[in-house]
């Protein structure tokens, strides 16, 4: 009998994995199957731009099937549960799929249902998300009518997918309001559960001062308990209140519910894995790649990309009966849009926070780190083409999977107050 590789999720990680592995695994020995609930692969970084009318819908969606290689079975269906003891996956339509190796690549999703009041009467009237296509489009319409008041950008709880996106949205909204001549009629507030603008000290300081320069108020250490819909107020667990006219929130992010049903998840439905190999702590033939695992780095496409490179090599060793020698270091890099046609770039891993300096990019030349430049903005826009045409098909991109210190300036030690 042929060996079965089953991948749950045809998003960034799942698509890259099957494209790379189909070339490496002998078709006479291996079947590869991918399951997803639908056939629309979104270019998720594009959602950020939808509210400002930069992209149209067709620029940010492709058929999932069209991005998969021949020789891979694509099954559209909802996963009911994984049974790690019998190596089977059951779909909600009753179909059972057997596997020798399972990759969980089902990502993370915004869950507005998890915060009291979020999905109430004001949802998509004065309360919006921009991490879904529908949310970003509804927000685009709302922004057209918004000409004064308090615009509040809010993060419910970490970790979230693309942790820089709320900051980018804030910078873009500020520039957009300025362009429309409305900036002095709008109070902009950034509400975060973190102690500052970002998770790590050097980046937090840089990004924090960018918020300050733009006269954006920051409400930090704010953990929302509920939204008072009648009064249009965010209420925190320690009873602070932030009123809003237009709320752009990032709901709690959680892994797929089938992970929880299968007993494979932590308290946010993320699969506990070895952070260097992405192998499940519960079953040696299960891996969680991309946003679905509990690794302590950003939930971001770049992490999916770099970790897939390590995973694929390790996987080939594992199925050949050899020890896995690759070790993922948590490498992430992200462009941060800052408005006015400029952007920043950050590059970091488990051990090294985002620093200033330069990022050595082959051909295109060094990109400035943690600094607003036109070139970083163009890099971000160019990435959409790279995503569809190079990244997802699993073609080599000349970026090393491991983070490098070349070009980076070391950080001074920070003393922080409790």
């Amino acid at each position, binding site marked *: 009998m042929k060996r079965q590789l089953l991948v749950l999720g045809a998003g960034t990680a799942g698509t890259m994995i099957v494209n790379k592995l189909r070339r490496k695994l002998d078709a006479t020995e291996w079947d590869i199957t991918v399951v997803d609930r639908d056939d629309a692969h979104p270019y998720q970084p594009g959602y950020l731009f939808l509210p400002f009318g930069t992209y149209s819908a067709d620029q940010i969606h492709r058929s999932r099937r069209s991005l998969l290689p021949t020789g891979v079975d694509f099954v559209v269906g909802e996963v009911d549960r994984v049974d790690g003891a019998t190596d089977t996956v059951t779909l909600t339509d009753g179909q059972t799929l057997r596997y020798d190796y399972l990759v969980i690549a089902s990502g993370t999703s915004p869950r507005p249902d998890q915060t009291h009041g979020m999905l109430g009467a004001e949802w998509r009237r004065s309360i919006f998300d921009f991490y879904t296509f529908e949310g970003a489009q509804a927000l685009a319409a709302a922004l057209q009518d918004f000409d004064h008041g308090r615009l509040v950008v809010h993060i419910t709880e970490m970790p979230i997918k693309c942790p820089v996106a709320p900051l980018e949205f804030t910078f873009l909204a500020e520039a957009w309001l300025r362009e429309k001549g409305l900036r002095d009629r709008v109070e902009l507030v950034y509400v975060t559960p973190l102690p500052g603008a970002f998770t790590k000290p050097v980046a937090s300081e840089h990004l924090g001062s960018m918020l300050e320069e733009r006269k954006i108020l920051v409400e930090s250490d704010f953990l929302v308990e509920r939204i008072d819909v009648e009064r249009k107020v965010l209420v925190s667990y320690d009873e602070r209140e932030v009123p809003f006219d237009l709320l752009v929130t990032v709901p709690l992010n959680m892994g797929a519910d089938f992970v929880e049903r299968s007993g494979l998840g932590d308290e946010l439905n993320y699969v506990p894995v070895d952070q260097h190999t992405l192998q499940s702590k519960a079953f040696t033939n299960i891996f969680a790649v991309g946003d679905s695992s509990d690794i302590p780095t950003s939930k971001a496409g770049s992490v999916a990309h770099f970790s897939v490179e390590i995973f694929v090599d390790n996987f080939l060793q594992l199925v050949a009966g050899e020890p896995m020698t690759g070790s993922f270091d948590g490498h992430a890099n992200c462009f941060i849009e800052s408005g006015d046609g400029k952007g920043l770039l950050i590059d970091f891993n488990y051990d090294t926070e985002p620093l200033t300096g330069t990022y050595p990019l082959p051909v295109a030349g060094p990109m400035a780190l943690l600094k607003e430049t036109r070139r970083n903005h163009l890099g971000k826009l160019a990435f959409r083409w790279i995503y569809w045409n190079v990244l997802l098909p699993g073609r080599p991109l000349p970026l090393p999977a491991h983070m490098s210190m070349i070009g980076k300036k070391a950080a001074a030690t*920070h003393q922080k107050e409790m």
Partner: protein
Amino acid sequence: MSVITLDGRPIQVDEEGFLTDPSEWDEDLGKALATAIGITLTDEHWNAIRFLRTDFAEQGETATLRRVSTRGGIPVKKLFALFPQKPAKKMAYVSGLPKPHGCV
């Protein structure tokens, strides 16, 4: 990293004052750490601290507020009352554990 004296003994801490070796901690030291940030420990505080210590021993990571509430059964609202303003950080500090790094 530096060495400070707390509860009459040398303790290794990082630049923010968090213990770097969780095994140097015991409940007397927990009391001293709490006093240092103006908290007097009650039985309710100890429930949270003991959950954090046990969970860390099993998981190798400091529990987030959500984990203390869903797995430890102590509501987030209560944690804010017990360890005001920055409960996740303060709980970890008093429990002699690293800051929770679920927040990336």
